């Protein structure tokens, strides 16, 4: 890893990371509070049969239990959009953006192997993902404390949940960086990564709302974010293994493709 590149990447993303982290912390904070305030009412509405039962478990999360609320805070579109600022936005533009601007050759004219350049940006991507996931979960813990429901919070399972979430968003970041290392322009790298995430998310949500589409869920990476199961003490380690395998695939792709690419003069 190159310390100068890593440090500069953090400096460049610092304000954005602070803003996204603040938003995620607030979002994480709100879910336990909403659960504490309205969970029983929502449960009553659901049990009345007005709403289909599927609405109670969007992407594996719900609003009737604290673990469900924490899980919902991770899989909700707001959380996905906010975390995607880095897992998609940063990773997909990290190399392709430098290439498009023409600054990649200024950086690579230095004694940095392309593998080191990539690995440094990968480390930066994962560090951003780690920060965003950490503040989101920390917000949830703070919200639970604020709402006075800490007793229902299985804190001991949080490290596993943290790891599971980092593996999911890390897998997305690894795919984004693999795309970024493969294209000369931002648009295709971002388009491929964003398309990948949207399709994955659509499959997961469609499967959770429509039983007939449930068989499609295993094709979605989001399906392997098992937040509620982890918090209820029933983690599926194979899921973590699968997410890790996706990360490895993305990393191997980039490490094979990027150092071998011919970087012609920017047009």
């Amino acid at each position, binding site marked *: 890893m190159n*310390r100068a590149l890593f440090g500069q990447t953090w400096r460049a993303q610092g304000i954005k990371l602070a803003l996204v982290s603040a938003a995620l912390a607030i979002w994480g904070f709100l879910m336990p509070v909403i659960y504490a305030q309205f969970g029983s009412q929502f449960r009553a509405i659901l049990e009345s049969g007005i709403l289909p039962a599927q609405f109670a478990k969007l992407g594996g999360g719900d609003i009737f239990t604290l673990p469900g609320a924490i899980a919902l805070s991770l899989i909700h579109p707001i959380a996905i959009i906010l975390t995607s600022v880095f897992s998609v936005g940063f990773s997909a533009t990290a190399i392709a953006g430098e290439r498009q601007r023409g*600054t990649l*050759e*200024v950086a690579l*004219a*230095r004694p*940095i192997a392309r593998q080191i350049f990539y690995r440094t940006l990968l480390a930066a991507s994962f560090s951003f993902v780690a920060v965003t996931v950490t503040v989101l979960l920390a917000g949830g813990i703070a919200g639970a404390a604020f709402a006075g429901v800490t007793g229902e919070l299985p804190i001991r399972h949080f490290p596993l949940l943290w790891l599971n979430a980092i593996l999911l968003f890390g897998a997305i970041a690894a795919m984004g960086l693999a795309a970024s290392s493969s294209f000369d322009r931002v648009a295709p790298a971002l388009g491929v990564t964003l398309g990948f995430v949207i399709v994955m998310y659509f499959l997961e949500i469609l499967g959770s709302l429509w039983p007939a589409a449930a068989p499609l869920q295993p094709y979605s990476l989001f399906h392997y974010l098992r937040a509620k199961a982890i918090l209820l003490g029933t983690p599926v380690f194979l899921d973590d293994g699968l997410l890790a395998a996706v990360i490895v695939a993305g990393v191997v792709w980039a490490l094979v493709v990027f150092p071998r690419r011919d970087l*012609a003069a*920017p047009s």
Partner: protein
Amino acid sequence: MPPIRALESLDLAVAEGEIFGFLGPNGAGKSTAIRLLLGFLHPTAGTGALFGLDIVRDSVAIRRRVGYLPGGIALYDSMTGERLLDYLGELSGRRPVRRAEWCDRLELSSATLRRLVRDYSRGMRQKIGIIQALQHDPELAILDEPTEGLDPLMQRAFYDILDSLKAEGRTIFFSSHVLSEVERVCDRVAIIRRGQLITTDTVPALLARRKRNVDMRVSGPPPRLEGVPGVSSLTAADGRVTCRVEGDMRPFLAAIEGAAIIDLTIQPAHLEEAFLEFYEGADA
């Protein structure tokens, strides 16, 4: 899209301590050659070495000893000039020991360096480009169109920097379209076209080889220049004789001796014409 053949049979050697000019029209392969040397491109055939190191296998070790100014350099616009130079220096892993000296000579003040790069003029960006390439005192500087955007005063300051580097034994590989500056600063020149090396020679030798334009007015019969060694494109009418003379001037001067010459102009050799002649020759 059919594959593009970029560069082909270039064969080039640059000696340590010389300023080497690399000339060619757009698309000749200058940038391709430079990008091969720095590892941006991978050769499909052939080999290359800098400092005796293989350009593919030892690319990182080579770049540790090289300073590079890309043509039309792109910079990180959101940084200040100072921060940019710091950052690129950190990436180089070598202290920017000569930054202050080059900033001073290129009149880049501390106040200017504290401004954001996005606010810089074209000339200031080019100065930053030159400084980032030379601030760590590289053994070899590869400069692609280095005076692009510099005003004449700064061009002169830059030539002085090159003179200093040459005096210190540094090697400069210099790609340019501005032939007058190549003539001004380079020891040797390579001319390439469509990936082929047309010639490599010292600037004086290139100039000596080129044809000179001769224009004379005579009051009597024109001198007999047919068949004189080195003379070509001869025209004589209405007391005016024009021709081109290549190489040794003595046969020509002997042939015009005794002629009633009223006026005689022999245009000085410029590299630009030599350059064009080489291209014309290559086209033929």
